[in-house]
C-alpha cells in the first residue's frame, strides 16, 4: 500500500541533482527525465494529448530551459513540472481545438519483455479500460483526478496548477470518483 504522502523519486540527493542540472551536467538531466517523464507522459496520455510523447519532450525542454528560475524542494519541483506540462497541454488543445477522445489500448505492452502473455494482455485491456473510463469524465474532473493520482500531487498543488480553489478541487475529485464508481458497478467489468 502506498502512503498518503506523495513519494519522492530522488529524495535527499535532489538538491545535488538540481545543482548539477543547472550547471549543464547531462547525468543530472537524465536523472530528472527518467524519474518524471513517465508520469508526465502518462498524465498527457490520459488527458487525450494527440502526441503525448512529443508533448512530454516539449514540456521538458521548457523545464530544463528554465531551471535557473526554479527554487524549491523536490515536491515543489514535481509540481512545477506538472504546471509546465499542463500549460503545454492547454496550448496543444488551443491549437488543435479538439476534445479528448477515447484512447486506443496501449498495444506496446504486448511487446515488452517480462511477464506472461496473459498478464501483458490483461494489463493492456486494463489500460484500455482506464482510458475509456477516464475519457467519460468531464474535463475538470479528469484533470484533477489524474493530477492527484498520476502526478502524486496534493490538493493544494493541484489547485494551484488548475487555478481553482482547494474546495473546488476537492469537490471535483469526489465527483470524479463517484462517477467512476457508478460506471464500475454498472458495467461490472473487472480490471
Amino acid at each position, binding site marked *: *500500500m502506498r502512503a498518503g504522502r506523495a513519494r519522492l523519486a530522488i529524495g535527499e540527493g535532489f538538491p545535488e541533482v538540481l545543482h548539477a542540472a543547472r550547471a*549543464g551536467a547531462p547525468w543530472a538531466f537524465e536523472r530528472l527525465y527518467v524519474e518524471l517523464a513517465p508520469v508526465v507522459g502518462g498524465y498527457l496520455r490520459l488527458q487525450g494529448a494527440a502526441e503525448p510523447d512529443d508533448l512530454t519532450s516539449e514540456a521538458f*525542454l521548457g523545464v530544463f530551459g528554465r531551471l535557473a528560475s526554479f527554487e524549491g524542494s523536490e515536491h515543489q519541483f514535481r509540481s512545477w513540472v506538472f504546471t509546465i506540462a499542463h500549460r503545454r497541454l492547454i496550448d496543444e488543445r488551443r491549437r488543435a481545438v479538439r476534445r479528448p477522445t477515447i484512447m486506443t489500448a*496501449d498495444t506496446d505492452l504486448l511487446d515488452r519483455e517480462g511477464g506472461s502473455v496473459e498478464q501483458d494482455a490483461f494489463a493492456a485491456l*486494463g489500460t484500455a479500460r482506464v482510458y475509456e473510463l477516464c475519457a467519460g469524465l468531464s474535463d475538470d474532473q479528469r484533470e484533477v*483526478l489524474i493530477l492527484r493520482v498520476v502526478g502524486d500531487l496534493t490538493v493544494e498543488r493541484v489547485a494551484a496548477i488548475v487555478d481553482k480553489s482547494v474546495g473546488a478541487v476537492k469537490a471535483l*475529485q469526489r465527483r470524479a*470518483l*463517484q462517477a467512476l464508481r457508478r460506471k464500475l458497478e454498472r458495467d461490472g467489468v473487472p480490471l
Partner: protein
Amino acid sequence: MPGYTVLDDTAVEAVLCGGAVAPELEPLASFVGTIRTTATRPVRPSRELADRMASGAFVTGRTRRTRVRRSSPKVVAMSLRAKVAIGSVAALTGLTGVTAAGALPDAAQQRVETMIEFVTPIEFVDRAEFGHEVADDAQDGGVDGQEISERAREQAQQSTDLGNQGRADEHRSDGRPSDLPTPATVPDQPGPDDHPGTGSGGPPDVLPDGAEGRASVPPIPD
C-alpha cells in the same frame, strides 16, 4: 439497487493515495491503482531534447523576449504625405551614402550614380579612371615629394623667365609699364607646402589682402 457509501474526504484520500479502504470501495481503489500503473511507461525523448540533454545545451538564463518598438506619438500624428516625404528623403540620403561608398554592385552603382547626379549637385569621380592613375603611380615609383618639387621648380623657373622678360621689355620700352604683372618672388627651393604629408603643409590660416583668387603664375601671353 446498491446503496452507495458516501465518499468523505478521508475515503477520497484513501482511494487516491492507495490507503486502506472499505470493502465496497476496493474496486474503485483498484481502478485508481491501474490508472497509476499506466503512467510508468518510459517516454522516449525527442531528438532535440536528447541532444540537448547529452550536451547540456539549455538556455538557463533569462528568457529572451522580443520587444516591439512602437512609433512615437509625433510620428503617428503626422499626415501620410509628411510620412512619405520623410521616408523618401531618408531613403535617398541612405542610398546616396551607400553609393558614395561604392558599396553597390557595379551595374546598380552606375545607374544610381547617374540618378543621383541628375537630381542632386553631387558628382561622382570615375572610379576606373582614378584606379588607372593609382596604378600608374604605383608602377613608376609612386607619388613622391621629389616629383612635386620638380614640377614646382619648373613652374617657378617659368615665372622667373616671364618676369625677366617683362623687366627687359620695360627697360626697352619708352618707360611705360608693361601690361604683364610683376610676379612674386619665387624661392629657388620648394617650400614646405610642396611636400605633402610633411605636417607643415596646408593652406595658411590668413591670406594677405587681395590674395584670394590670384593666380601664383601670371597668364602667359599668346
